[in-house]
């Protein structure tokens, strides 16, 4: 994967609309852009502008009406549902606004969950999970259930779950949207470290300028149209 050249994500002429009753509501119109490997990209825009929709398309959990998306050399827009599921399992790490941990599983088990789909042995899985929890400084909370953790801690568990399979891209939809400022800072620092220290590619939807400030590149989505790149320094 590292030998491949060119952008890690190529979005080409994406159109997406939703049906609302008899009406067709266009959400994304002719979106085209690239993301380079190791880049930290923030996607901004007003509520309802289609940020989540675009992120979902790149992450392979929704289908575009037309256009192509290529991630890590694979044209995901032409994969079947089943192929997409397999692709997501190893290529995408997800971080959501509301953490979305499984409440009946401990922090350890939540992080372990994606590894069940790999051929990894029990001890192999344990090793990986230990490392991931350590990376998010939660080794001492491995046996806690989500309800026993603060929002910030839960989001760190979610990040550990997202990186556990060493995915090609990390997608985050408003990862700090539900957190207080201090916890948000922690999460953003953690994401920065993932980019800088581990060379991860991160695509983050946010409408918090402070969060966007951590990114290398900020893209604005307005009424389904993408505005030209803005460098983070300019927005602050």
């Amino acid at each position, binding site marked *: 994967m590292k030998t491949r050249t060119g952008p890690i994500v190529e979005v080409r002429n994406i159109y997406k609309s939703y049906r609302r009753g008899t009406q067709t509501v266009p959400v994304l119109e002719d979106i085209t852009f690239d993301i380079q490997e190791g880049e930290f990209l923030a996607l901004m825009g007003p509520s309802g502008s289609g940020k989540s929709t675009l992120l979902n398309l790149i992450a392979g*959990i929704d289908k575009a009406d037309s256009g192509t998306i290529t991630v890590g050399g694979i044209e995901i827009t032409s994969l079947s549902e089943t192929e997409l*599921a397999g692709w997501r399992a190893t290529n995408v790490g*997800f971080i*959501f606004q*509301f953490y*979305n941990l*499984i409440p009946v599983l401990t922090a350890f088990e939540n992080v372990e969950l994606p590894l069940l789909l790999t051929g990894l042995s029990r001890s192999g899985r344990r090793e990986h999970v230990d490392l991931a929890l350590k990376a998010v400084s939660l080794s001492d909370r491995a046996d806690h259930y989500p309800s026993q953790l603060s929002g910030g801690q839960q989001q760190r568990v979610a990040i550990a779950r997202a990186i556990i399979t060493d995915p090609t891209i990390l997608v985050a939809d408003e990862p700090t949207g539900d957190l207080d400022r201090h916890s948000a800072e922690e999460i953003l620092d953690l994401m920065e470290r993932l980019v800088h220290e581990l060379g991860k590619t991160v695509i983050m939807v946010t409408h918090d300028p402070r969060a966007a400030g951590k990114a290398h590149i900020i893209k604005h989505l307005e009424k389904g149209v993408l505005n030209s790149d803005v460098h983070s320094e300019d927005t602050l």
Partner: protein
Amino acid sequence: MFILKILFKNAFRHKLRTSLTVLGITIAVLAFGLLRTVVGAWYAGVEASSATRLVTRNAVSLVFFLPISYKEKIRQVPGVTEVGYSDWFGGVYKDEKNFFPNFATDAKTAIDLFPEFIIPADQKTAFLRDRKGAVVGRKTAERFGWKLGDIVTLKGTIFPGNWEFVIRGIYRGAQKSTDETQFFFHWSYLNESLKKTAPYRADKVGWFLIGVKSPDVAPDVAVTIDKMFKNSLAETITETEKAFQLSFISMTEAIVVVIRLVSFIVIVIIMAVMANTMAMTVRERTGEYAIMKTLGFGGWHISGLIFGESLVIAAIGCASGIALTFPAAKAFGDSLSQFFPVFIVARSTIYMDMAAGLIVATVAAVFPIWRAITLRIADGLRRIG
């Protein structure tokens, strides 16, 4: 392992709802088991009946009698080894509610014809010797605390008067399914009294009991006997004891059909309750299933989780229902022993309980599974936010 944990934990996440559902299944399985056992008890006499015994009765109806003189004629039929006869006495012990079947019978042949009634040899002799002697089943003896030598008075309903008997024998059943509630005494005792008080009723019997060499000659013997009495004053119907018992039951067959029907309706109702529980459960967890799908888990995993959860709930309910069926059937059988001398939970009933549990679990899971599988991830996630 991991999946099992999720599944069990999920099943008990909503403790009250799961407990109520489990309780519902327990009661449904219990009711189903008891109702089926009642039906089984109804047919117990048929099941236990012998294939080498024939019954000859009046062709018109059981309440019409046959002349005792038929006995010698029946004896002549090739294949017949023994001929006995009985009358339904219909005596009441103190109170109507103390019902147990009682017969006047030809004592000697009765003992030979019913090897499944086990009577100690000395009691047999004592019974045969005493004109007023009677033999009673273990259950009825225990019920009224009768011991050997006790004098028991039955009030006649068909044959008026107070009839005194001496308990000379207590029999026990050779099998679990043998009726241990019967009471029988010498037909000659009844007949002698009738000769004095109601001579027109004397020398008549309710039915003949016929022993045959082997089950395969039974049909021919039956035909020969009935032919013999064709165009006589009292035409006969001869059939195997099994058919005879069935003809008794057929009078009440409608009730049995209703009980069977109700037992299945109970299962259908609990199916609806369980389906509702699973539908609510899965609806609440839409977001979680969306997450698992996002992480790459497929339809099979999700189906397994939902079906497994349904199965856990159904299995717990079913197991407790089955466990409770035995003591309940015992209590039921004890208090209703006069109506159901044999009240045993059949193995087939347990298998049907299990099958019902499995079907309930499956049916309840089908719709939720379909919903979870067809759920679009983006929609599922949207619900959380």
